């Protein structure tokens, strides 16, 4: 058994862990990422590559602001990654659509967005409800079943495969250490430092950041953190590459910079990551009703992943009271929030405190309320 020592250990090398570790390394902190490796069933596998704002934050106004801030930090992140790695992550923020396939869907959508934007303390930003004709003016390929859409100019998308690679390369360029094949089995706080046991080594660190997605539920209590998360299945379908035809990302249909179409994405209360024809056919059917000429395309891949969900759907950022220096970050939107994780969360962790005024709302303490009788 070998032992090594770092100032900060990040547990989990998915999009959340990689972004935080990159931010820490940029701050000049000796950081190590302990990762299961490419075999990990990371939540990142279920990402759709959206940098997304509209519809986020109903029930927690601060999360709407957090998402707007995340989208706003993205150009800076893309530029920093390009400077560090030479990789262009193909960020585009032309605005994005949510398409409604019936008048009822459109009315529900409009009502939901109105409730969201009427919440006290919700950040003000533009969005529009568009009828069929106005939607078609921007998305000429829509079919006759499209009743309308919501459009938000802050939305966009990115090549998430390039993002993942760029974060890992940039981490290394800033002196960070990536340790694959090192799943954290046990965590102990002892004498002011953390000891992390993996199958082949013990790693010691002054601080520890749990970014292990659904694994945080198991790891958190070892350092005095409650992380009530559960897996939620999502399935994604990818078509062959086609010539560009979709100028804007739609929340369930987007064309990548290389021409593939991603169709998604389901939300299922399932705990096994298997793909099934029932859900995939609904995904494909809805996409083809939105854009009928998609129906002739060949599907080349489909897969399922387990995403990370909290009871209220909002992220958890927390610090341990019992074990100072232990932090947790878990969320559903590792792509949208990548810049926030690198440039906002990481520097606070480096300083050792998540300031109350910014982070208390995201603490898991919000779940510790007595249940109504």
């Amino acid at each position, binding site marked *: 058994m070998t032992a090594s020592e770092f100032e900060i250990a990040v547990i989990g090398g998915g999009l959340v862990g990689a972004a935080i570790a990159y931010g820490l390394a940029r701050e000049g902190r000796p950081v190590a990422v302990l990762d299961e490796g490419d075999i990990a069933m990371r939540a990142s596998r279920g990402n759709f590559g959206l940098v997304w704002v509209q519809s986020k934050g109903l029930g927690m106004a601060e999360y709407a602001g957090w998402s707007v801030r995340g989208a706003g930090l993205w150009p800076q992140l893309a530029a920093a990654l390009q400077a560090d790695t030479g990789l262009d992550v193909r960020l585009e923020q032309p605005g994005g659509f949510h398409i409604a396939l019936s008048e009822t869907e459109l009315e529900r959508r409009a009502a939901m967005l109105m409730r969201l934007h009427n919440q006290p303390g919700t950040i003000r930003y533009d969005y529009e409800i568009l009828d069929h004709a106005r939607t078609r003016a921007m998305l000429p390929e829509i079919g006759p079943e499209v009743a309308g859409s919501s459009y938000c100019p802050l939305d966009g998308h990115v090549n998430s495969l390039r993002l993942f690679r760029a974060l890992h390369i940039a981490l290394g360029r800033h002196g960070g250490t990536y340790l694959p094949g090192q799943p954290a089995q046990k965590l102990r706080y002892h004498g002011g430092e953390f000891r992390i046991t993996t199958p082949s080594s013990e790693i010691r660190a002054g601080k520890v950041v749990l970014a292990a997605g659904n694994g945080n539920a198991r790891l958190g209590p070892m350092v005095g953190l409650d992380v009530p998360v559960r897996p939620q299945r999502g399935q994604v379908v990818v078509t062959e590459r086609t010539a560009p035809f979709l100028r804007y990302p739609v929340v369930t249909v987007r064309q990548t910079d290389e021409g593939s179409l991603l169709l998604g994405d389901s939300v299922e209360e399932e705990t096994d990551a298997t793909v099934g024809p029932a859900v995939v056919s609904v995904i494909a059917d809805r996409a083809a009703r939105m854009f009928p*000429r998609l129906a002739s395309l060949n599907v080349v891949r489909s897969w399922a992943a387990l995403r990370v969900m909290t009871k209220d759907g909002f992220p958890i950022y927390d610090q341990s009271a019992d074990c100072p220096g232990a932090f947790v970050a878990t969320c559903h939107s590792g792509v949208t929030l990548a810049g926030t994780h690198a440039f906002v969360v990481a520097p606070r962790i480096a300083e050792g405190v998540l300031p109350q005024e910014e982070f208390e709302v995201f603490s898991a303490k919000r779940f510790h309320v007595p249940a109504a009788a």
Partner: protein
Amino acid sequence: MFRRLPEAGGSTVTITLDGCPVTARTGDSIAAALIAAGIGHCRLTPVSGTPRAPYCMMGVCFDCLVVVDGVGNRQGCLVPVAEGMRVETQNGGREIGR
């Protein structure tokens, strides 16, 4: 580069490649007919625009993609030729609706 075996039988059919007539034999796949006719490439890749020609001839490599009678991204090695078939070079990604 490629020559037909002298004993190859079959009757002659004519297809077109990008509008030009190409003579093939019944039983040829489109890919076989194109390489027998001496084409240099049958598609340009969607990402970099690199020219590609049929390679594996057994449905695996997808390098023989062509447009067949107006339908894009057909695997030329898996489609038998037919009289009057219109084959076009697949230039980059398939166009939506084609």
